[in-house]
């Protein structure tokens, strides 16, 4: 079985994996980083979104072996120095979560939207950008509010 090494949340990691192992399985099963979730089997729900080399990807759709040497950030690595990321704060402040299952993927996508689109986000744009993230609980209203507020806060 191939050994796959990456940097996850700033730490060098490596594990011996079946070549079919998906990134999400590598994170959840090999590294026990269970904050990244699996909500579907067709790459639609976005519960599994993480950042690879700074950009959001669906970790259910990438093979771990293809990411040898990559730099991965998961929800567990977003808070820095014991301080929540502004997007995490914004989700809590705006009640952007209920059951919490979609939340890690939502937050990782939200940060990526801000990285790509800037700190002033129109509601319509946020809604369009969330195409790849499904939430069954919140009706999206407060997620949209949270992302808008989080985007501003990320601007400092």
């Amino acid at each position: 079985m191939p050994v796959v090494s990456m940097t996850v949340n700033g730490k060098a990691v490596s594990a011996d994996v079946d070549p079919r192992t998906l990134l999400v399985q590598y994170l959840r099963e090999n590294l026990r980083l269970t904050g990244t979730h699996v909500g579907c089997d067709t790459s639609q729900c976005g519960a599994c979104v993480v950042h690879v080399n700074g950009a959001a990807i669906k970790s259910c759709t990438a093979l771990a072996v293809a990411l040898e040497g990559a730099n991965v950030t998961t929800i567990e690595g977003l808070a820095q120095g014991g301080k929540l990321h502004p997007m995490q704060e914004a989700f809590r402040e705006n009640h952007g979560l209920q059951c919490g299952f979609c939340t890690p993927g939502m937050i990782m996508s939200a940060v990526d939207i801000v990285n790509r689109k800037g700190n002033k986000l129109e509601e319509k744009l946020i809604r369009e950008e969330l195409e790849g993230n499904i939430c069954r609980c919140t009706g999206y209203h407060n997620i949209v509010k949270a992302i808008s507020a989080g985007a501003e806060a990320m601007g400092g």
Partner: protein
Amino acid sequence: MSMSGIGAPVRRKEDFRFITGKGHYTDDINRPGQAHAVFLRSPHAHATINRIDASAALKMPGVLAVFTGDDLAADKVGGLICGWMIHSKDGSPMKAGAHPALAQGKVRYVGDHVAVVIADTYAQAREAAEKIVVDYTVLPAVTDMNAAVKPGAPVVHDVASDNTVYNWHLGDKAATDAAFAKAKHVTKLDIVNNRLVPNAMEPRAAVGDYDFGADSFTLYTTSQNPHVARLVLSAFIGIAPEHKLRVIAPDVGGGFGSKIFIYAEETVCVWASKKVGRPVKWTADRTEAFLADAHGRDHITHAELALDDKGKILGLRVNTKANLGAYLSTFSSSVPTYLYAPLLSGQYDIPAIYAEVDGIYTTTAPVDAYRGAGRPEATFVVERLMEVAAREIGVDPAQFRKKNFVTKFPHQTPVIMCYDAGDYNASLEKALEMADYKNVGKRKRESAKKGLLRGVGISAYIEACGIAPSAAVGSLGAGVGLWESAEVRVNPIGTVEILTGSHSHGQGHETTFAQLVSSRLGVPIDNVSIVHGDTDKVQMGMGTYGSRSGAVGMSAIVKALDKIEAKAKKVAAYVLEASDADIEFKDGKFSVKGTDKSVDFPSVALQAYIAHKFNGQDLEPGLKESAFWDPTNFTFPAGVHICELEIDPQTGVTRIDRWTAVDDFGEIINPMIVEGQVHGGIAQGIGQALCEGAVYNKDGQLLTASYMDYTMPRADDVPSYNVGMTQTRCPSNPLGIKGCGEAGAIAAPPAVVNALTDALGHENVPMPATPHAVWRAAQSTIAKQAAE
């Protein structure tokens, strides 16, 4: 109102772990030595099983065992049960076919459980499952209810040769016929309430773990009601006696009803953990969730409303066929009967109602409660009829509703329910105002200039929540009581643990329940913890569904807190050297009436435990109380939702422009959380109306078994919601709470369809009103406009 007490929009205590990825969902749990289960599912909708050959599978690497229905039967593991007995019109009991956890001789829907493979890894179990050879004789499928009841249709269960589980009815037929005989106008409607898949984002999962030393089982599972799961697994399925079976439902990622039920998979995992001597884990993939989670809705209804010459309702007649799928799921029989027909009076004063419901077997997944459960179906019937009737007699739909509202309380409907409190006019008036209803004509003209069709639709819903009292539901056939329990443990330093039989899977109990305790005892919410979801920690409880955690679960906490206060006053009396009768408790302080002598709550807690100031024979040491609460009535949340939308007749695309919701939930503990519940419910209702529909083809294959084919509402399918409240206190529980969890899903579908049909100028548009369906419906509208 304090910053953290009742009524404050306190930010949720549970959020920290969820936003940092530190939640503990069932699939996050791994037990030492754990093996993995994969279910071999039927590819056929209906077939007899002649032989299962697992020999090749057993030789695959890592495989520990393959089990079939015969193995369960040999161990005397009972079948899955339906816990609500319904009787047909003629008094005969419903015809419940056997429901083995693994098929015995026959499969009845695509996804039915044929065998389970247990292996060292998930991948090994999955590969081995493909090596099992099953010899089937394929039988014809029947997925359509009308076809299922025709003579000669394929028979799903021999006990029900006409595929009819029951022919049930409610109401007074003669009185209703008489009302129709004198009607000036009768509105008739044929309605299809589309089949939905609940789709909590966390798929179901289970880890069974057997402890040989203690001869006891632990089951970690995605449940809304772990004690009910333990009761059923123990008393009916016979896995182990209750004291040898612990059920833990940790963080659960949404339920919406689908995680109430006791399914085959958890039954098999917990049983198999003893058979293979290792913990056994199963996690559904999304396709399995589509195939085998209990579905929702799926009614065909003909309904008629009788009016007099002044537009007053005289009577309502409803005939419904409800698809129950291939087996009766845990509470399925009650959903289209007692959770449906008793709500057919809506918010209206209707003198006579008669409803007939046939429950039908088909070769499809079992159908059971999904957010609202019966009440959305009833509201859809009533609110579509109200809208169409108003249009037919040429009256404004808002005025027509007003004219027929119940205005005096209590109000006994002809269909069981006694509405205890409400002000339906107040909600309607406020909603019309917030929606700027009076200017809708102007907005329609503006849309028309752009070639768009604008419509507005009202939905005035009522629901019965709490799902209680126990004696009442017992008389209607429920196999369980529907009270709730609570235990309050005050620790010696004055922190508080609440053990509740309610279960939170997104509702935020860790926050709202702590707010209640904080208000009552004056302790900060950070000093209160909520314990739930573990049958070894929490005494018997009934769980969370039917918007019952506030009205019933918190009432049990109130009752236990009353006992805590009474006991603490006695302790305080010793400490303050006064008589109990003179002790007052306010803002976390006990004081002696008319003096400045006082002691705070934590000090009293400490005194209760060190027991130095009183004699243990006169007063028991300690400060811990428990309570069971059984309500005196259902609760009746009600409100008005108004949907305003635009259709592009060229593309069929519908855009919801405004959503107004005005709800009366009685007293509110945390308005932020309540609004969140309303938002989520509305999105699910919009999903039903515009996007979602489970479709089986005639061979019984589920065509919509993934997110590629089943449209979940996305952020850009729904609008921002304008949510308002009115308030009448609920008289049947101490906090005055009515419940809010299901309202949006109940209110929304008829609001959307009433708006669509208003825009289209005719009533012929199905749910889900996809762009294709709307485009087709708009063609006759365009043709008519061109002709005018």
